[in-house]
């Protein structure tokens, strides 16, 4: 609840008439200013010395510097990419951007999946069901004790042992699972699909508004009308109707085995999947513990008071326990999100081309180690600070508000 509470005495002190600054060592304000100027000055001097000296040494060793290499044609091959990439014409800058996108992709999906699994496992550990509680406990204790890198190599080795493309496991002629990854049919994108997607967004907004309206009416009249029929028609009916009105186009890009490998369709590569699996399984174990401790931090009296009021168990969990547990859960949960994102840099061990992998290749091909490492650091710092900022905002949002 950080800075929201203001001690009235502090406010009074702040409002006190301004004192003149005396240029004397006995004045605490003057001393404070002098010390701060000295410390900032020292920090600036140190940074200036380090940067200047590095530059001098680089020049003395005839090492080229600067970020000009970002505009040079990369020529390095990249296995998987969310945006089009051609090594013959695209630059190192674009190659690195692909790395960042790959990192973001695996982190974003990983965070969502780890949160869901972690929450379920955390609640499972508190379950009255002996088997469920023991199984989830076993999972948490085992997974936390094995280094992540080993787990990644384990998952990757496991996926290697899937059959060759020609003997792949298949569902009809559409879905193939082999050691080249999971091949899925891909929807051929038509304008109608874009409009349907837009309708889905509109439907979601409508659902939120309707939900708010229902709640307001409940607060005013005590009558609660059901939300789901409207939500269902807005979320599914509306997009379907838009799509049907535009002629209901539907065709698939099917994967087919040609030459060495499957052509067409979409792919989930073993490298991506092994990394995702490793990160999710590992981080979910920690999140489970965070969730469990958060729930246990809510005193039993709260729960009993809820039952005494005659509330459902679900309502108690949703309305009483979870809102209070969230306050305990969110700060350590933020750390886990940051860990997952940073751990994704282990991708290089199993051949998924994240930002570290591509930046390493770049710094090897261009020889610009300082710039390459600086780039990696800047990327992780940006991602981590963004996650922190969002989670801090959310933390303040759910924090106890003094009324």
């Amino acid at each position, binding site marked *: 609840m950080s800075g929201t509470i203001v001690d009235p005495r502090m406010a009074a002190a702040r409002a006190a008439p301004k004192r003149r600054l005396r240029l004397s060592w006995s004045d605490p304000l003057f001393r404070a200013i002098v010390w701060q100027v000295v410390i900032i000055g020292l920090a600036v001097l140190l940074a200036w010395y380090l940067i200047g000296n590095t530059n001098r040494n680089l020049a003395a*060793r005839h*090492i080229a510097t600067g970020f000009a290499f970002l505009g040079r044609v990369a*020529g390095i*091959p990249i*296995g998987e990419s969310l945006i089009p990439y051609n090594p013959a014409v695209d630059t190192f800058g674009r190659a690195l951007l692909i790395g960042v996108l790959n990192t973001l992709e695996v982190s974003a999906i990983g965070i969502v999946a780890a949160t869901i699994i972690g929450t379920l496992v955390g609640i499972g550990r508190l379950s009255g069901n002996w088997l469920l509680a023991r199984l989830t406990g076993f999972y948490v204790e085992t997974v936390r004790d094995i280094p992540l890198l080993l787990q990644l190599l384990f998952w990757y080795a496991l996926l290697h042992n899937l059959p060759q493309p020609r003997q792949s496991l298949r569902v009809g002629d559409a879905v193939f699972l082999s*050691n080249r990854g999971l091949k899925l049919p891909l929807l051929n994108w038509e304008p109608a699909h874009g409009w349907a997607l837009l309708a889905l967004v509109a439907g979601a907004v409508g659902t939120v508004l309707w939900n708010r309206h229902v709640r307001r009416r409940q607060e005013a009249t005590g009558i609660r009308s059901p939300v789901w029929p409207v939500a269902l028609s807005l979320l599914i009916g509306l997009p379907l109707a838009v799509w049907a009105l535009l002629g209901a186009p539907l065709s698939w890009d099917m994967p087919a085995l040609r030459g060495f490998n499957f052509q067409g369709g979409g792919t989930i590569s073993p490298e991506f999947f092994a990394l995702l699996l490793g990160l999710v399984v590992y981080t979910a174990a920690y999140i489970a513990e965070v969730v469990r401790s958060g729930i246990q931090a809510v005193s039993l009296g709260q729960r009993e008071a809820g039952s005494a009021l005659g509330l459902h168990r679900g309502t108690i969990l949703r309305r009483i326990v979870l809102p209070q547990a969230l306050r305990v859960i969110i700060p350590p949960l933020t750390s886990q999100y940051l860990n997952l994102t940073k751990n994704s840099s282990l991708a*290089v*061990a199993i051949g998924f081309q994240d930002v570290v992998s591509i930046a390493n*290749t770049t710094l090897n091909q261009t020889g610009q180690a300082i710039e390459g490492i600086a780039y990696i650091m800047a990327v992780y710092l940006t991602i981590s600070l963004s996650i922190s900022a969002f989670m801090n905002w959310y933390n303040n949002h759910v924090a106890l508000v003094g009324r």
Partner: protein
Amino acid sequence: MSGARTIDEGEFTSMKFARSLYLCVLMFSLSLTTVQPASAQGSGSATLDAIRARGQLLCGTAGTTPGFSLPDSQGVMRGLDADSCRAVAAAATGDANKVKFVPTTTQNRFTALQSGEVDMLSRGTTWTLGREGNLGLEFAWVNYYDGTGFLVKKSAGVKSAKELDGATVCVAPGSTTELADADFFRINNIKFTPILIQDVSELQGAFLSGRCDAYSTDASALATFRFSQGPKAEELVLLPDIISKEPLGLVVRKSDDKWFDIVRWTFIAMITAEEKGITSKNVDSFMDSKEPDIRRLLGLEGDMGKALGLDNKWAYNIIKQVGNFGEMWDRSITPMGVPRGINNLWTKGGLQYAPPIR
């Protein structure tokens, strides 16, 4: 190889972060050390003075590559790259054993050399313009002429690299192989999917398990890898296409020309010895030779060693303690089943040609 063969040192594969950290530390040391001009009194080479004061040569090697640098069962580093370090140590200090082998990776090798962590690199590094132009390094000699090749499984039925359209290829990241492959597939207008794994044993595992259709790196490394598979070697085929030039060189820092000369002429001395038939076994019998070339090489006539800032017995020490170039080859590479080919003397159809020592 430039990357591949050497890559990364399975032992501490894991510790990619350790590596990055190491890089950071190296860079930090770069930011702290001050430039020291070559001292006026010494040999004229700051590097040579430092080696003599320290009592040993710091030689950056891979330490994980059979035939090039790999510790044997007694923990002694063996291989062509390791012996190259020994030869330079013999020239610089008079004792081939005064070498400390510093393990380097494809990732940190240049930074290690630039920051003075090692005196030279002998770890299969491809000589390119970019590296000499941008990195403040120079290549003193080539101890292995190599080229990028492809290894495939016999069951794939591929006869030429041009039939690899649509194939998945296992490549070490950060190597010149990576660029050579991209160029080759682009030129031939065929597609491939790269799988880039840093740790070389993981990479080879991915190929053997069938994740990749082909494994691409320097042909020498493919040959030693195939050889190491024992009876299963028969199932693997080395494609005839060599798609790039990979001259693997000995690298030193720019700005110490004297040191560059010492490394370069060490190799010229070994090749000259092979041309003249002088070996570690028979070198003493040449000490009463009448041939001026041999007398100059062995320091019996002229001041060749002094011109390099070394003892006049420099070449004698190299030959006596390490051997000539052919001996180095026979000791390390021949057992791997790799023919000498273009690495032979120019008189035998190869590329190794020694300028005169006079």
